[in-house]
């Protein structure tokens, strides 16, 4: 139903484009051609899928315990920030630097969600706005790094930090992809296993379904919320490092994240907490994103893509209602013979 809602939303967006004097079918064909018509298109989609998948996995994990992590964009940026900090200052063998970068990014993502997580777990402060506000702080901090304290003074034109000298190995048989793409797939598989087979995952699902039931079952609900949120942030943070350690993306600039966190949020909402679903939905949203980039040359702007994201998200929300919709027969006491209701 969520998927149906998204599809209906896409069709509605096409109709809106038609009404504004564009040819949605032509654009759709162009989009499909851009994405699947060439090797570059498929690789371009997979390249965009990496950050979207990582943020989406973090959001999806938090959704299992009914926490909305809308700050995955900030956690992603802080992961990249920490990775750059390590990468340009630490010297050593490449594999060693990469491992330290990954650890630093994972930690940075967790640190970035620490205050919202503590506030949510122990003070019952709504996490939606606290996580989101930190996105803006992260953007400013990254801008500061790129234009200020880690600025690459050698490059006069591009305003970014210095480049990290190490990159991940490339994925065999591809030109622009690295082994980083395997990480979200591995994490999705691991999370799917945790929630299918482990006690911890089962308890998280109980808390997500009904926190009171969790308390009665003797689960430390607050600690579960804290830990889940920290892991959620760290996955997004690791995503920032993976994005940074691809050839050609080794420096941090203020435009490092093209709202990947928001795209990831939509993916998680579409997948509805299913980790396998995240992978499928992630590639779908990434293909839309890539098609949007290509279609910019055809007069379609990236802004329209965001507007369409909004329509899709509405479609998902309405689809969820439709999925829950049941006719429930409630027994009404039959009227008494005398005709006087009890």
């Amino acid at each position: 139903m969520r998927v149906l809602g998204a599809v209906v939303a896409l069709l509605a967006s096409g109709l809106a484009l038609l009404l504004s004097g564009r040819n949605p079918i032509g654009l759709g064909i162009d989009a499909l051609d851009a994405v699947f018509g060439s090797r570059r298109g498929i690789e371009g989609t997979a390249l965009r899928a990496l950050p979207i998948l990582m943020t989406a996995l973090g959001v999806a994990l938090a959704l299992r315990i009914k926490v909305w992590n809308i700050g995955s964009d900030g956690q992603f940026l802080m992961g990249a920030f920490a990775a750059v900090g390590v990468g340009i200052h630490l010297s050593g063998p490449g594999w060693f630097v990469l491992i330290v970068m990954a650890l630093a990014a994972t930690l940075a993502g967790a640190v970035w969600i620490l205050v919202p997580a503590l506030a949510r777990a122990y003070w019952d402060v709504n996490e939606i706005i606290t996580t989101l506000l930190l996105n803006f702080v992260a953007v400013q901090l990254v801008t500061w790094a790129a234009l200020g304290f880690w600025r690459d003074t050698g490059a006069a034109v591009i305003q970014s930090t210095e480049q990290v000298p190490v990159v991940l190995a490339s994925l065999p048989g591809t030109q622009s992809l690295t082994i980083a793409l395997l990480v979200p797939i591995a994490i999705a598989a691991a999370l799917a296993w945790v929630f299918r087979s482990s006690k911890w995952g089962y308890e998280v699902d109980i808390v997500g379904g009904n926190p009171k039931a969790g308390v009665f079952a003797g689960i430390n609900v607050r600690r579960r919320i804290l830990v889940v949120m920290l892991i959620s942030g760290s996955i997004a943070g690791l995503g920032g490092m993976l994005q940074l350690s691809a050839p050609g993306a080794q420096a941090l600039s203020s435009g490092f994240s093209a709202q990947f966190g928001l795209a990831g949020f939509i993916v998680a909402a579409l997948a509805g907490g299913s980790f396998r679903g995240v992978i499928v939905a992630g590639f779908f949203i990434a293909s839309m994103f890539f098609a949007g980039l290509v279609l910019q040359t055809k007069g379609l702007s990236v802004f329209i893509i965001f507007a369409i994201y909004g329509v899709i998200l509405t479609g998902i929300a309405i689809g969820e209602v439709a999925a829950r919709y049941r006719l429930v027969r409630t027994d009404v006491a039959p009227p008494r013979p005398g005709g006087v209701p009890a």
Partner: protein
Amino acid sequence: MMLALIDNAFLSLIASAIPASTVVVLAATGCLLGERVGVLNMGQEGLIGIGAVYSVIAVTSWNVTSPWTAMLIGMVAAAVAGFVFAIAVVVVRASQVLVGLALALGGVGLSNQLGTNRNGTPITTLFREVDPGGAFQTGGVVEAFFFHDPVVYIAYVALPALLWFVMFRTRHGMNMRAVGENPAAADAAGVSVMGSRLVYCVLGAAISGAGGAYMVLSFTPTWSPDIARGRGWVALAVVIFAVWKPFWVVAGALLYGSMISLDATAQARGWSLPFLGGSDLGFFLSMLPFLATLVAILVPAAAAQLGLRSRSTAAPAALAVPYSREER
């Protein structure tokens, strides 16, 4: 001498904070209106964008010559968006979080698209400052508080006063709050839950849209992409800080605004700190409004933890909970 310097800096901070926070005051007031009847509209960012872009379109393409008319057009556009939102969450009962985020994303995307050809066009149809007359032109306090355009007075004084009166001193207001606290009871008492949720959701969206209109018709005054720049999210936070009370919204928004103008004031006066000289200070200060807002959200919760706050000041009990008469 030192005192005079501090005094002046503080006054100029307040003077520039007032217009800078007006957008947040309006958006947060619109938001509060919806939340009091139990509807959380997280699409404030989108509503500000829509209100702003339609005001810009009104003055640049539709030859509107009065800023009031332009603002009204922006408000109507935002109200339409708010109506779509209200249908989805009140009538269809879709998740308020998801649809709210959709409105934030979609509204920003749509307004950026509509404003593409108007980037940087200076707006000349502007609100004029109210001049209190020559006798008051002594600078200092008077200048800080009495040289603003009429929208400022409406947003800071008239609107909160009206809301406070209606919400806490009339029967209608009591019904309204009942819908936000216990819709089933309100329904049983004969109050139309769906009706009041729809009406206040749309009205709230219009007020948020007025915030966007104010940005382009007085504050910036020009269109640029992503015009709200997080102010919509700050507005949502301000409502929490204000524990759903109209005049506390003003205080919360001013806190944010003074952080914004701290940046500008520091730049204008060439301030520096031992560790953060020159441009670094600017970068640091640009993070401050959002950090301050984050701290502000934690204040009511911290007060509750310390036992300083009574339970009656908590969020409306039915906030973001869809109401269905059949399921009560």
